[in-house]
């Protein structure tokens, strides 16, 4: 059976596991979403947004699409020195035992629980931003929505410690999980949210995430997405951000490992004087390893600022894809939008497809974009070697230097150190 049919057919069985929950408004959304998914189907390279990213390997994998994950009691804590609120999902299911909430004045819980309640925030925000009508994987996630993080930061609250959402699949069978997050930051709220993936399945795994993030007026939200999955993991995820006036949102995505990784980041600027920062680093290096970042910033209102900086280190037989779209609507005068994508390609078999897309309908704007792809600077390499560094060591140092400006953007010291170590380890091979 095709993967699409499998998902469609299993939906009824999934409903059966939800017990009384099927009366909830959220479930009506799930049902709509599975219909949409059925209509959309899994995208192929004929689809403009999937032109360079072939998901054949995914569709050909033999997944058991419903909760085949084993029960694992405990897993290793990531970045243990980081004091954080922790939500840990093992094989897609929240592990209370491994989770801990240390900040008091906010709500952090399993989305599953929030969906069961008569929750005004769910009613107001759930599935309002995620485009399940157009995007197949988002539709699929929405249909199978259950576990995930529900985070509510009330008006004026500045969350002291970061909120770390750790996803881990450890299993020896083909597994699919659909983590779904809803993050609502009210006016003047401030928080840092970190998603970390380090699955270690020996079999094919498909992690299909969707996050919706609402950043109300004057709120300031920093998110990080750190991807360290092993080489069997397909990680496809979409983040939908909705910003109101004078809010600030920043995202930094670092993809160091995985099999096929696709990150969609969609930011809708619905108020004036918003600031948006998008940073990314990706280092595909293995055969059939493809890391793809698609970003979309929708400047709907005047006087907003967006700045995007993605860097790729492409080695071995790895493939990188970057597609950054900036839309400046007619109303969005005085928009400042900048985008830069820089890549170094370290081997003959490595490849990168990079495509900036600017669509501008306002006349008084400042927009710029640039994409570069190059090799390691020959003169710099010679300089280091002439001081006695080996060719390998010098290349590693220059590659590390290239990646450094993204790592420098990380504001959590413990995370920065962790990433530096991970990156050094990655480049050492």
């Amino acid at each position, binding site marked *: 059976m095709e993967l699409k049919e499998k998902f469609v057919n299993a939906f009824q069985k999934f409903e059966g596991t939800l017990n009384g929950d099927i009366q909830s408004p959220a479930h009506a959304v799930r049902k709509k979403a599975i219909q949409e998914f059925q209509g959309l189907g899994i995208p192929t390279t004929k689809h403009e947004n999937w032109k360079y990213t072939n998901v054949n390997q995914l569709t050909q994998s033999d997944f058991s699409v419903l909760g085949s994950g084993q029960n694992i009691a405990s897993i290793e804590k990531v970045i243990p020195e980081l004091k954080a609120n922790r939500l840990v999902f093992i094989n897609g299911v929240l592990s209370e035992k491994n989770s801990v909430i240390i900040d008091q004045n906010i709500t952090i819980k399993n989305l599953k629980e929030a969906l069961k309640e008569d929750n005004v925030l769910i009613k107001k925000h759930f599935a309002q931003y995620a485009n399940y009508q157009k995007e197949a994987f988002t539709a699929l996630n929405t249909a199978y929505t259950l576990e995930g993080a529900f985070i509510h930061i009330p008006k004026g609250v500045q969350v002291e410690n970061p909120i770390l959402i750790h996803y881990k699949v450890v299993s020896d069978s083909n597994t699919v999980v659909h983590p779904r997050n809803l993050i609502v930051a009210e006016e003047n709220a401030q928080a840092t949210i970190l998603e970390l993936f380090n699955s270690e399945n020996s079999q094919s795994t498909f992690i299909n995430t969707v996050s919706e993030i609402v950043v109300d007026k004057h709120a300031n939200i920093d998110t990080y997405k750190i991807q360290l999955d092993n080489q069997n993991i397909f990680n496809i995820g979409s983040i939908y951000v909705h910003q109101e006036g004078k809010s600030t949102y920043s995202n930094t995505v670092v993809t160091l490992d995985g099999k096929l990784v696709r990150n969609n980041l969609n930011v809708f600027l619905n108020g004036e004087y918003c600031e948006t920062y998008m940073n990314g680093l990706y280092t595909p290096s293995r055969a059939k390893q493809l890391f793809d970042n698609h970003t979309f910033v929708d400047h709907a209102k005047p006087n907003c600022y967006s700045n995007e900086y993605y860097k790729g280190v492409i080695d071995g037989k790895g493939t990188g894809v970057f597609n950054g779209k900036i839309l400046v609507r007619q109303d969005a005068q005085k928009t400042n939008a900048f985008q830069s994508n820089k890549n170094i390609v370290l081997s003959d078999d490595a490849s990168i497809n990079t495509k900036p897309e600017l669509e501008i309908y306002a006349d008084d704007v400042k927009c710029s974009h640039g994409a570069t792809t190059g090799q390691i600077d020959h003169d710099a390499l*010679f300089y280091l070697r002439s001081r006695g560094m080996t060719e390998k060591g010098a290349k590693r140092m220059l590659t590390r230097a290239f990646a450094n400006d993204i790592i420098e953007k990380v504001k959590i010291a413990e995370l920065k150190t962790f990433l530096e170590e991970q990156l050094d380890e990655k480049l050492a091979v």
Partner: protein
Amino acid sequence: MLKIEGLKARIEEKEILKGVNLEVKPGEVHAIMGPNGSGKSTLASVLAGKDTFEVTGGTVTFNGKDMLGMEPEERAHEGIFLAFQYPVEIPGVNTANFLKTALNEKREANGQDPLSAADFLKLMKEKMELVEMDKAFINRALNEGFSGGEKKRNEMLQMAVLEPTLGILDETDSGLDIDALKIVANAVNKMRNANRSFVVITHYQRLLDYIVPDVVHVLQGGKIVKSGGKELALELEEKGYDWLKKSSELTV
């Protein structure tokens, strides 16, 4: 120590070195002068192992070993150091970190234990004093945003730390103010000893007042056309290079 015989090198189809002969003995300082574009930096680069130049003839031995077959890092481990005419800026590479790695790789290649962080810091402190460099520089990215003179001084710092047996200085004096020039000359003079030699490429006789050479050569049109004592530098300062061209053409 260094023996160059009939060295020819080209880039793309252009022949730049057309048969250079030069012998530097332990403890000697040789100055190389010559007009712009005559091949001085090319010679220095070829000695350091830059592969954009293709060696088409001749031999180079260093302490009896064939040098042309060696990788740049192997040459560095053997004791060659080139202070670049135009040091490259390398953003993101921390100066101290880089120098520590380079030094320890050299030590390892020579069968020495790596320096500990503390010992390295001590060494750096001492060498920074020698070249009168502020310690802020070593925590910056390598040469990034350094002024011309600061870059040159950073080259001298690296030389002092790596302690080569042959230092090649390619116009280290260009762009230096008079105080900096004295500091650089002083650093070189302090490093001078019976086993360490220098090849100093310069356009100005002024430097040679401070670093007094044993031999002065004129490289012109890819060849050494004249060699002499330190008085030759004075003569060149006065007369330029044209007279040499005429006389060398006459002798051909």
